[in-house]
Every structure is written in C-alpha cells, then in structure tokens.
C-alpha cells in the first residue's frame, strides 16, 4: 500500500510491514497504524523511524533499549503477552521512543514505556513498567559525551 509521509515522501509498504497499536500510543490514542523504517538510508544506524500511516507528519525515532541498557529489566506477564498476541516463547521486538532535543547529545529514551512489537502478527502496544528504576527520560549518552552541544556547520 502507498502511504504519504512528510519526511519520506510517498512510501510503498507491504501488508506485513504494518504494525498495529489497537490502543494507539499514550497521547496519540487515534494513531493505531505505524511502520518501521530505516533511520538514515545512507548510514547504518541503531535507530529506526516509526512512521504513522494515518498522519503524514507523525514519526517517532525508536531504538532497541538493550543496546544502551544491556541489563534493561522488562518482563512480560502472560496477560501482557496476550495483549500483543504472543504465545509461549514467541519472539518480539522491544523499542524505546527517543526524544532528540536541540542539543542532540542530550537525547533520551523513554524506558518506562517501551513498545512491544509482535512482528509476526503485526500487533504492538506501549506498555508502562511498574519498575521505579526507569523513567521517561533516560540519557542515551554517558555524561562525558553530553557536554558539547552539537552544532550545525
């Protein structure tokens, strides 16, 4: 299907590339369909875009939280798994939404509300962890990498 996007122009995506969030995302309850796209077609990146199929302008930057927080603690209960149609040991993708402020080096990932994506079924949900160790703004870069503001030349 062809989808208009403001960032990527018209994109053509296969049915199996559609990720459905039946409840939407928090604050975006009516945005129920997205697709994952490479972050930067020219360079390999640990990040991806999650583009809305409904709103041309809406795209989130997401990343795999385990790349940055290897001991990230996320345990899905049986009830949680049912919400995204996972059974037994079915595999799923875990993604955290990234916020990129003017000073890029201060970008943060939302670790308390990860996206759990069942790629095979095309179903996903933004879960809210009860683990108090995590919050909505977890710096992705360590302090020594955060000092210099990124300037555009």
């Amino acid at each position, binding site marked *: 299907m062809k989808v208009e996007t403001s960032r990527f122009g018209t994109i053509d995506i296969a049915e199996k590339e559609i990720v459905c969030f039946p409840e939407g995302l928090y*604050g975006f309850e009516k945005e129920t369909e997205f697709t994952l796209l490479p972050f930067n077609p*020219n*360079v390999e990146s640990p*990040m991806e875009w999650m583009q809305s199929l409904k709103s041309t302008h809406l795209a*989130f930057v997401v990343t795999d939280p385990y790349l940055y927080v290897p001991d990230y603690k996320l345990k899905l209960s049986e009830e949680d798994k049912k919400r995204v149609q996972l059974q037994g040991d079915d595999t799923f993708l875990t993604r955290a*939404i990234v916020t*990129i402020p003017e000073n890029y080096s201060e970008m943060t990932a939302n670790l*308390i509300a990860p996206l759990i994506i069942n790629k095979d079924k095309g179903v996903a949900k933004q879960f*809210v962890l009860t683990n108090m160790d995590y919050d909505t703004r977890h710096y992705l870069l360590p302090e020594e990498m955060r000092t210099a503001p990124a300037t555009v030349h």
Partner: protein
Amino acid sequence: MLVLTRKIGESIKINEDVKITVIDVKGKNIRLGIEAPRETKIYREEVFLRIKEENKSAATSQKFDLGKVSQLMKDKLKK
C-alpha cells in the same frame, strides 16, 4: 465516584484479592498499603501524564541532522 471514609488501619477491598489499607496520615500526605496478586499493575497516576507528554515531545523534536545523531549513537555503542 464511590467515596468512602476510612480511619488509619482500616482497609477497603476490591474484588476478593486486592486490599488497600490506610497506613498513616500526616498533614496532606496519606500512606497507603496495597496488597494485590503479583501480576496486578499498580502505578502512580502521574506516570501516565509524563508518558503522554514525553510521547508528544518525541513526536515534535524532529529537526535534526540524521547523520550526526546516528554518529553519536554509534560512538556510544563503540565504547
């Protein structure tokens, strides 16, 4: 909304397996004790508001240099 008055030490039960007890009251603060099955998710309500706000900031913070951001992320992963 159902409104109940409870004293310190008194509880309310929700269904048969959730019990919320007033532990202490100090000024405007009330300490609650919650007993519930392990899989019950208990949140401070504000967390949902913070997540909504964060999703909105994430959705609007989009004018950046893809190459530079990618490079920063990769530099971090090399360490």
